[in-house]
């Protein structure tokens, strides 16, 4: 075979003669490679966000949801029917040895009014243990106390986003008054910034008031049932399974559920939920990457197509080369290198485009994208392979031409 530089030079020249055609053919590869890189980056970004959520929420946190409704064969989701009672909460706090702390959490989305602004946010009713479970510290002021809980005081703790929306940036909200559903509250503390949750919601867009106050003033009476969830923390991240078992046994006993019947509640650990989410994300990103890969293969077919056209167009040229003594291997190499060059150029531009699009998406939409270097290398290798595989057939066709036939070709 003649030297690589010679063959590459020939390949480049042939491509440069048909710049538009070469570019359009490479475009198939460009889009394929860019799509692979972008899709994998999105998938990886989602995964890392779930990881962050897991770390932010705490690996030893569990949530107890009340049961599902079952009416005429239709089942509602967990939480659609309140089944958890205040009695259950006390039992969990006192009788489950692996539970370190437990707190109820009720939510209501409602407008909150300050002297200067109105902001619709989620008002939470909970007990002081909640902040301990979530490992969520007070930035300024003080937190809710057991005294607030006992006295059903109208003290509130707010997140940073709410503070900014109601009072503006860099204004100390401590001591300010707000109104929620016609009742005045005094802000006693502001929470540390927590950022986005794993599901993408702003965790700092929240107001917290004592559970007792929430029951009386916002929910319209505490009642027998907890309208919301119970947050638990295990004594250690390893104890989450034990907590799940203890709480399940305890609640089945309390709710007098006979053996063989389903629970009317559910206990979920954050780690478990994150695991399920991450499995979904993996499936989704595999799917996205597969679609992207298909487009890369379609790009490869485009390369093959144009190479076949090129071989036909250049039959006479091939005949001349064969006549003056080119080895069939030389002709094979010439066309193979041409296809490979096309695919490699497409691959390189595709990588640049994919990384660029990833950056743009994360900047524009706040998606977290993780561009993995190994995927970049893989995409380049695959596009090279696509060039070789789809270039091989046209190149072989060229190399096998009969010189006399080829010279006669018009």
């Amino acid at each position, binding site marked *: 075979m*003649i*030297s690589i530089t*010679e063959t590459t030079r020939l390949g480049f020249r042939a491509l440069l*003669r048909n710049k538009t055609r070469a570019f359009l053919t490479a475009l198939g590869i460009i889009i394929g490679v860019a799509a692979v890189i972008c899709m994998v980056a999105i998938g990886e970004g989602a995964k890392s966000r779930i990881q962050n959520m897991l770390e932010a929420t705490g690996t030893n946190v569990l949530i107890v949801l009340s049961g599902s409704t079952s009416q005429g064969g239709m089942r509602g989701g967990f939480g659609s029917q309140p089944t958890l009672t205040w009695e259950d909460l006390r039992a969990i706090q006192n009788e489950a040895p692996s539970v370190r702390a437990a707190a109820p959490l009720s939510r209501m989305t409602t407008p909150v009014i300050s002297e200067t602004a109105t902001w619709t946010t989620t008002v939470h009713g909970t007990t002081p243990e909640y902040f301990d479970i979530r490992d969520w510290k007070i930035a300024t002021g003080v937190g809710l106390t057991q005294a607030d809980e006992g006295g059903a005081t109208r003290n509130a703790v707010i997140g940073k986003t709410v503070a900014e929306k109601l009072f503006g940036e860099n204004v100390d909200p401590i001591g300010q008054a707000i109104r929620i559903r016609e009742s005045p509250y005094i802000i006693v503390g502001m929470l540390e910034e927590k950022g986005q949750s794993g599901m993408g919601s702003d965790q700092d867009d929240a107001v917290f008031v004592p559970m007792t106050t929430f029951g009386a003033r916002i929910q319209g009476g505490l009642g027998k049932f907890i309208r919301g969830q119970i947050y638990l923390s295990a004594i250690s991240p390893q104890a989450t399974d034990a907590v799940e078992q203890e709480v399940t046994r305890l609640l089945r006993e309390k709710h007098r559920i006979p053996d063989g019947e389903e629970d009317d509640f559910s206990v979920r650990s954050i780690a478990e939920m994150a695991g399920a989410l991450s499995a979904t994300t993996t499936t989704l990103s595999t799917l996205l990457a597969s679609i992207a890969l298909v487009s890369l293969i379609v790009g490869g077919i485009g390369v093959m197509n144009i190479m076949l056209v090129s071989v036909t167009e250049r039959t*006479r*040229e091939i*005949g*001349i*080369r*064969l*006549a*003056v*003594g*080119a*080895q*069939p*291997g*030389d002709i094979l190499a010439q066309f193979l290198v041409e296809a490979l060059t096309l695919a490699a150029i497409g691959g390189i531009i595709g990588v640049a485009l994919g990384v660029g699009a990833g950056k743009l998406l994360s900047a524009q939409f706040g998606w977290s994208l993780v561009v993995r270097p190994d995927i970049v290398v893989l995409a380049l290798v695959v596009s090279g392979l696509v060039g070789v595989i789809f270039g091989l057939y046209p190149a072989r066709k060229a190399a096998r031409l009969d*010189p*006399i036939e080829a*010279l006669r070709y018009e």
Partner: protein
Amino acid sequence: MALIELRDISKIYVSGDTELAALRDVNLQIEAGEFVAVTGSSGSGKSTLMNIIGCLDQPTHGTYHLAGQAVAGLDRGQLATIRNHFIGFVFQSFNLLARTTALENVELPLIYARVPPAERRKRALEALDRVGLADRKSHTSSQLSGGQQQRVAIARALVTRPPLILADEPTGNLDTKTSESVMTLLSDLRKSGITVAFVTHETDIAAYAERLLVLRDGQIVRDERTPADKERS
């Protein structure tokens, strides 16, 4: 030893049930340094003969020795090597690469002979100089006249310094005056010791040769010395 030695060469084309013999039991010897014209009506097998001598095609039967080497039974790669080292081709339709300069066209056989670029360039320039086109080296095929293109093709044929140059109707696409100059060039090559064989159907072109072969229905029916040969001797 003859440069070209054909023994009982036949070329049979099969299409469907019918067999067509383009060449039938041809026996031919051409010595080194001969200047041979092959003529015959169309379909007489002269192009097939040239293709077999040129190692572009393989005979159905018979043996062919080129410079003592048996050619029959060689594979495509080996035939390509022989074409590259021993034979220079000149075609009726010039067959230069389009959009490629004269110099690069002449370099082409040297690329496949694995000659390094610097030497390649030097030898290609020498060959162009020999056909009187050194000043046209950067012109592409379309910028050259028919006669000039054929001279570039001759430069390409002789750049590998082959012992044999084959030309298939080299003047077929040229006017009388350019034909003369091309034939003069081929005669000059012959004088420098290269064996030249060409196909033509024009008697005045055939007259340049020293030996005339006439084919009819795939057989050599005449093989004679021409006046040009007598002039020489």
